[in-house]
């Protein structure tokens, strides 16, 4: 009987937490609506968030995407022409860079860099009563702290994904010049002829969803801290773990939707 009771209480606990998280997300979205119509003093927070999450991550994203674009071209050009399917390199580039790796790698980098920062930042604020200070001043902490982080991370992930594509596709072209020189016109027309609008839309949708997931999870765990600063590292670890899990699941679901 104890076991049943335990399972029951655990399940109830889980459901309650899930409902709470959903409520949190709904609140964020509601406050986002208000933020958009009335920005006031919060615009600066948003700018800084995009600076930290987006601009500062650009070098990492650029390096990774250049490298991946290069590897795809080197591997592809060494294997595909053996089957007389050299043209497929464009499809592979688009599937790998635009549709799959671009959004998910960008999201993982953002989760690792900014998700952790947001969780520990908000956790510290809770511990040092800064959140209470916002509330006391009549500044809604969700709107002033969470919404700019949500928008900032989402926008940054979206834009970083665009940069990932730019650098990834450009990187593959640069490497092509060493392996099998073709003109830029040929490369771009091959690429542009192959890429479909749905590829771009899928990539963009993914990066937006991923950005939202990262910011929801990080702010949720950051604000879930109650009093002690020792809770902060735990919250950071949880935020990364949950982010990565949810990102992979969401990627699978979105890819599935793409092929349905």
């Amino acid at each position, binding site marked *: 009987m104890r076991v049943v009771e335990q399972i029951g209480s655990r399940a109830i606990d889980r459901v309650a937490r899930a409902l709470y998280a959903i409520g949190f997300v709904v609140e964020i979205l509601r406050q986002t609506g208000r933020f958009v119509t009335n920005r006031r003093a919060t615009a600066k927070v948003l700018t800084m968030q995009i600076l930290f999450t987006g601009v500062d991550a650009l070098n990492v994203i650029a390096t990774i995407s250049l490298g991946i674009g290069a590897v795809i071209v080197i591997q592809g050009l060494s294997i595909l022409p053996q089957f007389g399917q050299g043209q497929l390199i464009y499809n592979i580039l688009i599937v790998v860079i635009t549709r799959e790796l671009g959004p998910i790698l960008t999201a993982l980098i953002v989760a690792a860099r900014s998700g952790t920062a947001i969780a520990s930042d908000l956790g510290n604020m809770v511990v040092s009563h800064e959140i209470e200070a916002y509330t006391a001043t009549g500044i809604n902490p969700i709107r002033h702290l969470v919404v700019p982080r949500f928008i900032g991370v989402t*926008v940054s992930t979206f834009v970083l994904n665009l940069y990932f594509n730019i650098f990834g596709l450009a990187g593959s072209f640069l490497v092509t010049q060493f392996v099998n020189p073709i003109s830029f016109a040929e490369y771009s027309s091959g690429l542009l002829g192959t890429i479909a609008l749905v590829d771009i839309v899928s990539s963009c949708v993914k990066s937006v969803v991923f950005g939202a997931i990262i910011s929801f999870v990080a702010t949720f765990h950051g604000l879930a801290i109650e009093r002690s600063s020792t809770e902060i590292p735990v919250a950071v670890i949880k935020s990364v773990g949950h982010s990565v899990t949810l990102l992979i699941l969401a990627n699978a679901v979105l890819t599935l939707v793409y092929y349905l």
Partner: protein
Amino acid sequence: MKLRYRFANQAVGVFILLAIAAAVALLVLMGSNQRWFRRNYEYYALIDDARDVSVGMAVTFRGFTIGRVTSISLTAANNVDVRFTIQEEYIEQVRQRSIIQIVSSPLGGGQIVLHQGRAPTPPLPEASRIPTYDSKEALQWRTANEVIVLRAADPIAQIVAQVEPILLNLDIVMANVVELTDEINLALLGQSAGPVAGILTGLESTVAEVERAVARVSVVIDSAAAQADLVLEDLNSITSNLEATTAQLRDPTGLVPRLLDPSGSIATLLDDDNVLFDQITGTVAALDLTIAGLSQTLDELSRFTAYLNTAQPQIATLLEEGRAALNTGQDVLLGLRNNPLLRGGIPPVREQPSTFQGIRDGEF
């Protein structure tokens, strides 16, 4: 304050704007590359079988893709309605009297080839029907030379498309020739009930059949080797010769019936002031002409076979059989001419060198 913080707004602005500019540029380039902003004109064609067409198949003109198949449906009259679009910039090419031809490649994939009307006219109105290559009106326009027919980009597909019906006809021709040969052999052995005139009438129709088949072959040759006129002339002369011969033979007072009639008198041959002899020589001369013509046709066919051989071995194989059959027909006619009753001896058979190479001999 760090420089980075002081220019945070600018940095973020540049960061976002550059990305969006790149995305917009990509979309515009994609759009122009994939023609999002161009209008397409729709036309349709009615065909018998949807086997060789598929949605998304390219419509080509002089090797350029100018449109795509958008839908295929079965009409109430059991025709296959193929809808396809022509891109705006090529719409001027869709002149009156244009026809389409569905070309499927044995390697998979196919295309619809647009053959343009010869006379420059304003484009066909949208949603009008474009006749297919084999349709009656298309045949009419083609024979009237109102259509510019070019070889398609894929020579194999092109040839397959054109040769298929020819092969079908050749099959019939061969059957006829074999039958004819048997009949003639039997007649010469005196075992046939029917007169030679009937056999020759059969031969005439056979040759007409050949002529028609070769008329189709000629279209291929036109695009491949431009020798159709020669062949057609040859066949026309053969036909006229045969007609003349047959007319003579049909004459009840003609030579052959009497000649071959057991009750016929050999004396007549000697007593009629060379009239009969002249008739015979005339007939033989006509046969000579016919044989010469047939021989030339065989040469043409041989050359065509050689051409095809490089393109498609299977077709060559079939044509080779056809050639062999015609060869036999020639032998028969020679035999008739050299009937020991008329002349003496059969000349050595003209040997056609086999141009067929086995599939395994060549490089594929």
